């Protein structure tokens, strides 16, 4: 187990290097000079040159990369051009904000979607199955910005049950923070349930077709015993992998939901920084997202044997 984990971490190093090169290069391929953006219509040649110099953009790009990489290896992701804050502080702060929302949302999605998916598979082609599949297709198809806005207008404005504005961090005021998260979490849950339920259904169907299920039924076991004791664990494996992918993606930021619900999370930070051409923040965020993604997937793989003993760490 430990050897496997270490091996994965070591193999992550070239991946991260490639990611850092790609991120560094891509951000500089986008048109739009950070110095121009900072000075706006007050720019003149001297001011532009001075701004570029202070941002280190007057150096050759490869040299910029070497300097940046050297700093990153010392734990220094640089400073935001926009507000002067250390990038690492900014990223961790915004990540914590996003993570609270995402972890709650994914947790709830799993609790709702997996039982529904299994029920749909069990009653394949029946009314319940059709209803669940139709509902999941619908939820899957609705864009989160529209869904979020409808929830905001409905429950926040029309009914007045939930706060439209006034984000409060969960760590500062747990009750107010959780109340504020209800609508964004609901938006994410409704969308993710649509995805997870289909995977849970599909993998449960595959399992239900296997011979050992037939054997279990032949032994005279009840349907609930067949589902819960025999089918569930095996069916959950592929769904678990999908959940890991979803979690990795969402932890990288849910910019749209964060914008609609005015949540200062990682996704919004990335989008705002791209528009502002705040290179240091974009580079730092995307590198952080890559690391997060790798770690989440490692965790998923390490926990996989819990559901499928055939897969071992050796």
């Amino acid at each position, binding site marked *: 187990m430990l050897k496997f984990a270490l091996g994965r971490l070591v193999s992550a190093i070239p991946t991260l290097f490639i990611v850092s090169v790609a991120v560094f290069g891509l951000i500089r391929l*986008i*048109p*739009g*000079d950070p110095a*121009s*953006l900072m000075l*706006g*219509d*007050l*720019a*003149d*040649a*001297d*001011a*532009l040159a*001075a701004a570029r110099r*202070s941002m280190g953009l007057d150096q050759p790009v490869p040299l910029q990369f070497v300097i940046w990489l050297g700093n990153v290896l010392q734990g220094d992701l640089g400073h935001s051009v*926009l*507000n*002067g*804050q250390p990038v690492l502080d*900014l990223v961790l*702060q*915004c990540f914590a904000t996003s993570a609270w929302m995402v972890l709650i949302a994914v947790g709830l999605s799993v609790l709702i979607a997996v039982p529904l998916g299994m029920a749909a598979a069990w009653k394949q082609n029946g009314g319940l199955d059709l209803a669940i599949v139709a509902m999941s297709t619908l939820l899957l198809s609705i864009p989160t910005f529209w869904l979020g*806005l409808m929830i*905001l*207008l409905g429950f*926040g*404005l029309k*009914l*007045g*049950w939930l*706060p*439209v*504005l*006034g*984000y409060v961090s969960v760590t500062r005021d747990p009750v107010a923070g959780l109340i504020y998260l209800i609508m964004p979490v609901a938006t994410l849950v409704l969308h993710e349930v649509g995805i997870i339920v289909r995977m849970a259904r599909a993998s449960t169907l595959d399992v239900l077709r296997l011979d050992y299920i037939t054997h279990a039924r032949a032994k005279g076991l009840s349907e609930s015993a067949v589902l819960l004791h025999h089918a569930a664990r095996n069916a959950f494996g592929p769904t678990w992998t999908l959940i890991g992918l979803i979690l990795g993606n969402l932890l990288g930021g849910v910019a749209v939901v964060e*914008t*609609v*619900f*005015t949540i*200062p999370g990682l996704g*919004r*930070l990335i989008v*705002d920084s791209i*528009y*502002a*051409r705040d290179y240091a923040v974009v580079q730092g965020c995307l590198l952080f997202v890559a690391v997060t993604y790798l770690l989440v997937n490692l965790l998923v793989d390490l926990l996989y044997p819990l559901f499928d003993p055939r897969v071992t760490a050796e």
Partner: protein
Amino acid sequence: MSLSKPALRALWASAALALPGLALANTLNVQITADIRSSQPGINRDAGTDSVILNVVEGLVAAGEKGEIHPMLAKEWTVSDDGKTYTFTLRDGVTFHNGETMTAADVQWSLEKLIRDPEFSCKTFFDGSRDAKVESIEAKDAHTVVVRLDRPDAMFLNYMAQAQCGSTGIVHRSSFGEDGKWKAPIATGPFQFGEWKRGEGLTLTKFAKYAISGEKPDGYGGRKEVLVDEVKYVVVPDTATAVAGLKSGALDVLPYLPPGEAAKLSGEKDFTIVAAPHGGLVTMLFQTADPLMSNVDMRQAIIAALDTAQIVESVTYGLGVPNNSLVASGSLYHTAAHDKGYTYDPAAAKALLDKAGYKGEKINILTNRRSAINYDTAIIAQAMLQAAGMNAEIEVLEWASQLDRFNSGKYQIMAFNYSNRSDPALAYQTVVGSKAKKPNTVWDDPEVSTLVNQALQETDQARRQAIFDDLHARFLAQAPLVMLANGLDVGVSGPKVKGYRTWQGFARFWGVEKSQ
């Protein structure tokens, strides 16, 4: 049982009443679309940041509604005969937010610190590279500050009052930490800088000991009486969410709303829409070095094909004021001569096209989605140009990319907004110059440059007026760009708010009341 909003409010009100001595702070909740960049005036700023910070800091002088310069922290000043020495006499009884009384030594220290800072946005206004150099700042006695320039500069006080320069706001040295790094403004304004949660918002609190002077608010000056306990700025990037916040009562003021969104609210009672032109310029720029656009007849043809009044009416949803002069609508120099503008004449446009020898070449209009006004302007202009027989097309860029094209001069026509300029000379200075030296220059004419420089040096109002009148006549004749209107700030305030109005892009919160 579910609690409706009125029931929740009733519960909260009951709870508040039940607790003796507990009083709800009278908080004005204001939307900002992006967080401020820093709290240091004049450094690492943008228009949104200035609009917040200038409620907190004040300079020696302040710009009034018409762009004139008024006393603020200085109660009066004299200028030497050679125009190089300004002697400011400070007001008595001005207190910093930390309780200290402001002295001439504080002013000297603060001004030196600011204008010598390499990051100061307006460094070139004061270091001699653009206008006069500030040779020295001296505290002659406890109430007198003497500023010496290396040469006369009629714009010196205007520069000091510029929003982009943080109004050269005077801050106490305790605004900086022991390590010399900026902490937060300890200034003299009617609001104090309160808690700032990055990415979420910030709070300004009423400065109870503020020394009120003047009879009524006047631009950045005049009477600054704070009528609420605090102003809380909430970062709400999404317009739809902000409007929902306004309707739910979570927000009281949306200072900068796209005109179309504000127009939707005009039909609803209880919401007050305030729209005011400022000193910025809403334009369509010509690249006069372009083969096609270098022909003045071609440019005149385009102008004749554009119904600029109709364009302004449409893109501002009836809230804007057309202005074809670079002298702002609200400026005291905007006389009847500057009301003379473009004439919409499609027939004349065709005649001018023939004269220019136009053969259907492609005309590219650059625009962006960041500004609804720029985008809509380009759409309507394209239609009008096509109606006049021109092969116009639109290219929509992201703002950062368009800015690159602006700075490099690589465009034919560009829908573009310039930020606020508090004086007509600054507006002309912005667009006039040498393309060889400054590629984002629009109007390259040596005689015009000379006139602009004269306006920058002239202090006599009548002589300045004559210069501006001359410049306007040349502007109409040479057509270096299309001036549509001054920048427009559209704000909406909710039912509990009284007295809010925007001015020069500044969301000003003294004189604004909120009922409970």
